[in-house]
């Protein structure tokens, strides 16, 4: 350091001093040390200080006695004190005083005139030397500390400049666009990246206000947040934003806008960091397009269609909408016979034609998968709008499609739903369109069908019924009513027709016409029929027991499917046996179509039954196309003439000659074949009377009795 101190001042001629003087000098130095220690920091131990001061004392002793006498050593001592950092404010004063008071005494020197004046001169020189050295040291230190201040400032400024330069570099070199604007939105500076991104120079950008960069597609939140930010209500926000480039192109960006506040916390600047995500955006768009379109036909796919349909319902900008759900007829055949390649090309062409015939705003053609397409029409006026679309599509598909040398004719079935949006949902619409497409197929294909809520309700009910029927049979929800068959001759009840009913827990009492057909479809008719047969036979047995010869036979309907059941004969026989019922107490009714035009086997069964003694009746005779000649070869005992022929016989005063003629011809025919005749649907006394006159044997109908509980039949018989 500059303050290198050599505190071991050489004491010239030290050895010359006599030991008494030396001891005196040592004692004085100790007193001196005590006087000056503690007023400034001296980097010495107390002993070192004393040693140092003793050396100075010895210099003084020599100086006092020197000849010629010089004051220079005093000056020197003053300087050495400062050098050793005896710089405390009272160091000099104490030293000078101590020299005057104690030095001569301690050294054993006679305080004569000469010595006094020499001492005074040395004191003066010491003071001068000390003062001068202290001033120099002080000035040097002051200068040093000022220089240090300047250095430090330079350093700080350099650091600041470096950091500014760093920030500047960051701003200019950043790959992300950065712009700074004042709080009114005036653009102050933009970096190179932002200039490149938007295609404007700084000078051009400075002409703009942030608000000039508004884009029509900006989300509302972008500018709402902007207002909040400039108002100081929020400190930063992120947004997706589009900008229009100088060349008119679009740039998609991620924008982060931050507010810079001044020292008082007031909004001062805004800094925008803008990242160009156009490529990413376009890629996303492409991926999205791919995700939402059918690669084969290029049409929107199911996902996009459902999204759009969902949007129609969410926006409710329109009041109505319609769907055509379309499916090619017989596509599978084409695919299977001509190959998938042809099938695919066919689908492409169909897609093209659909798209072509259904163009315009608010309409969307989508491929749902396979050969299913759907057309969405937003904002339809009424159902006719959609029907027109469907007609156009069907027409468009009429002309043959030529693919690889094949000329293919395709047709399509279309389910149409069109309705007001309120009160329905996208899922409802889809489901109903799907059902309706099925109707169009069921109704014969190559057509459209319109959704019809009643039809749907019916089908739903049918479905429900057929689904619940097996359980109903197990739970005994079915029961049998009986309708008397009355001999016209004497009004005797000769037989009863067993009519099955379903006490449905939900729909109430159901007549056979509601469920027999369903049971036929599902095959449940076989166990159900067997159950009815057993019920009826058990009942017939009870009547036989109570009424003996007067007991009625039971007439049980046999469905087509039952008549073809190979177990039929065995079933009937077992039931008769188990009920111990003579076979002639049972009559089986079959429809014309069940008997005629059947293969041999069922006929065999009927013969067997007939031989067993069971009566066979043809139900609803006259409504089918019976081969009358064939009739005589059949094992039949009774014809039941359909109620529809009774119409003309109904009125009391007048009769329909044709109907009368038909019925009497049928009766004659039957009698010629030795068959009995039962007239169904007899509702008035006039009918009963006329039928009797015509020669009909038996009557059945409301005129005589409605179907009733077996107990009521009991009462009738007892009368």
């Amino acid at each position: 350091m500059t303050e290198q101190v050599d505190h071991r001042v050489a004491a010239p001629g030290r050895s010359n001093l006599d030991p008494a003087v030396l001891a005196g000098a040592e004692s004085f130095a100790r007193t001196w040390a005590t006087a000056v220690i503690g007023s400034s920091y001296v980097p010495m131990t107390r002993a070192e200080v004393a040693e140092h001061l003793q050396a100075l004392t010895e210099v003084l002793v020599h100086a006092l006695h020197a000849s010629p006498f010089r004051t220079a050593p005093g000056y020197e001592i003053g300087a050495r004190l400062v050098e050793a950092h005896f710089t405390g404010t009272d160091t000099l004063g104490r030293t000078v005083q101590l020299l005057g008071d104690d030095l001569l005494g301690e050294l054993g020197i006679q305080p004569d005139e000469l010595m006094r004046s020499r001492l005074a001169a040395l004191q003066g020189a010491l003071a001068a030397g000390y003062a001068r050295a202290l001033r120099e040291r002080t000035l040097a230190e002051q200068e040093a500390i000022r220089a240090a201040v300047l250095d430090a400032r330079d350093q700080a400024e350099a650091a600041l400049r470096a950091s500014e330069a760093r920030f500047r570099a960051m701003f200019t070199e950043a790959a992300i666009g950065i712009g700074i604007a004042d709080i009114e939105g005036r653009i102050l500076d933009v970096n190179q990246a932002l200039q490149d991104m938007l295609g404007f120079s700084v000078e051009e950008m400075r002409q703009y206000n942030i608000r000039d960069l508004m884009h029509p597609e900006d989300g509302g939140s972008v500018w709402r947040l902007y207002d909040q930010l400039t108002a100081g209500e929020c400190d930063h926000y992120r947004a997706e934003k589009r900008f229009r480039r100088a060349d008119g192109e679009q740039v998609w960006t991620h924008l982060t806008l931050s507010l810079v506040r001044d020292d008082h916390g007031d909004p001062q600047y805004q800094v925008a960091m803008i990242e160009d995500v156009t490529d990413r955006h376009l890629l996303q768009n492409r991926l999205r397009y791919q995700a939402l379109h059918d690669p084969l036909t290029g049409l929107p796919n199911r996902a996009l269609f459902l999204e759009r349909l969902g949007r129609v319902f969410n926006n409710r900008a329109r009041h109505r909408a319609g769907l055509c759900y379309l499916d090619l007829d017989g596509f599978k055949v084409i695919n299977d016979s001509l190959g998938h390649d042809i099938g695919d090309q066919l689908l492409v062409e169909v897609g093209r034609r659909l798209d072509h015939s259904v163009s315009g705003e608010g309409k969307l053609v989508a491929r749902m998968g396979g050969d299913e397409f759907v057309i969405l029409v937003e904002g339809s006026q009424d159902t006719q709008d959609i029907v027109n679309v469907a007609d156009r599509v069907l027409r468009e598909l009429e002309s043959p499609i030529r693919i690889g040398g094949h000329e293919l004719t395709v047709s399509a079935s279309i389910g149409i739903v069109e309705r007001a949006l309120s009160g329905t949902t996208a899922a409802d619409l889809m489901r109903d369109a799907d059902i309706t497409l099925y109707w169009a197929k069921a109704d014969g294909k190559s057509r459209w069908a319109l959704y019809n809520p009643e039809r749907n309700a019916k089908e739903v009910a049918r479905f429900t019924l057929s689904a619940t029927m097996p359980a109903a049979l197990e739970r005994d929800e079915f029961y049998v009513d009986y309708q008397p068959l009355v001999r016209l001759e004497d009004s005797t009840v000769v037989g009863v027709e067993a009519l099955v009913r379903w006490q449905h827990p939900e729909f109430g009492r159901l007549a056979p016409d509601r469920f027999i057909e369903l049971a036929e479809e599902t095959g449940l008719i076989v166990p159900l029929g067997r159950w009815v047969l057993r019920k009826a036979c058990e009942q017939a047995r009870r009547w036989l027991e109570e009424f003996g010869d007067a007991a009625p036979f039971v007439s049980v309907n046999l469905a087509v499917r039952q008549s073809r059941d190979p177990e039929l004969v065995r079933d009937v026989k077992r039931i008769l046996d188990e009920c111990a019922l003579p076979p002639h107490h049972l009559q089986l009714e079959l429809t014309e179509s069940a008997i005629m035009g059947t293969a041999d086997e069922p006929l065999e069964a009927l013969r067997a039954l007939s031989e067993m003694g069971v009566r066979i009746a043809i139900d609803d005779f006259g409504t089918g196309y019976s081969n009358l000649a064939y009739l005589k070869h059949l094992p039949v005992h009774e014809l039941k003439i359909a109620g529809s022929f009774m119409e003309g016989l109904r009125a009391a005063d007048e009769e329909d000659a044709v109907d009368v003629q038909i019925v009497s011809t049928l009766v004659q025919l039957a009698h010629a074949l030795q068959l009995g005749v039962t007239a169904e649907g007899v509702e008035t006394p006039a009918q009963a009377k006329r039928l009797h006159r015509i020669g009909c044997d038996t009557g059945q109908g409301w005129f005589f009795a409605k179907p009733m509980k077996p107990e009521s039949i009991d009462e009738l018989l007892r009368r």
Partner: protein
Amino acid sequence: MDSVERPNWAPDDIDLGRPSIARVYDYWLGGAHNFAVDRAVGDKVLADVPVLKSVILNHRAFLRRAVRFMLSQGIRQFLDLGSGIPTVGNVHEIAQSTDPDARVVYVDVDPVAVAHSRAILTGNELVNVLQTDVRDAKQVLESTEVQSLLDFDRPIGVLMVALLHFVPDSDDPHGIVADYRDAIPSGSFLAISHAGYEEGEWDPAWDDAKTTYNRGVSEMTYRRKQEVQALFDGFELVEPGVARLPLWRPESPDDLDENSAHFLSFGAVGRKP
């Protein structure tokens, strides 16, 4: 040290209108590395508390004794934290007078103190000066100034002389000391001198001086002997443990007086086992 939040690249403004710890300290030691504002505060405080003069000199003397003690224990490299303005009897002078190859890194947050140190140390290959806040031990220890000069495989003498009373409890002085402790090898030494007193020793007559310094220069935290001792967690204190400053290994009985037992500062040296 009153703008801890400032990032490192932007040093404090050099505000000569405000006294600095280092310059007021220099003034009290008898130096002239100071300005009128420093001297004004220094005089004012001293007028209220005359004993302060000896307290200050004692801290500096403790530094000398502690360094000499460490030298006697074989320590040849020193990390002087809060080194202040170089005056007379600096650490490298003491150390290099024993071993010319001794190394010293001075660390201070005061840019003027650091600039002055640099100015007088240019050319001394064995001394480095670093301007950093010592509270950030990691930054100090990882600095080039420290890493290029000190060998962390050999014991190091860490000096915190008249420093930690400028670190309030909220800055966790204990944790700061521990950070340095964990970085230095076993056999290293730590010296701390610290302003403080025991229960009941404070003289209300000093209140004004305390306020003047706290407001005008820097907030100080006076600690009890117990608290100073706690700073040596993980060290073994050398004799006589934490002591009133003059009583820590005095060089001469003459250096002691009737005030020594109630001296307003503590000092101690510990060895990392």
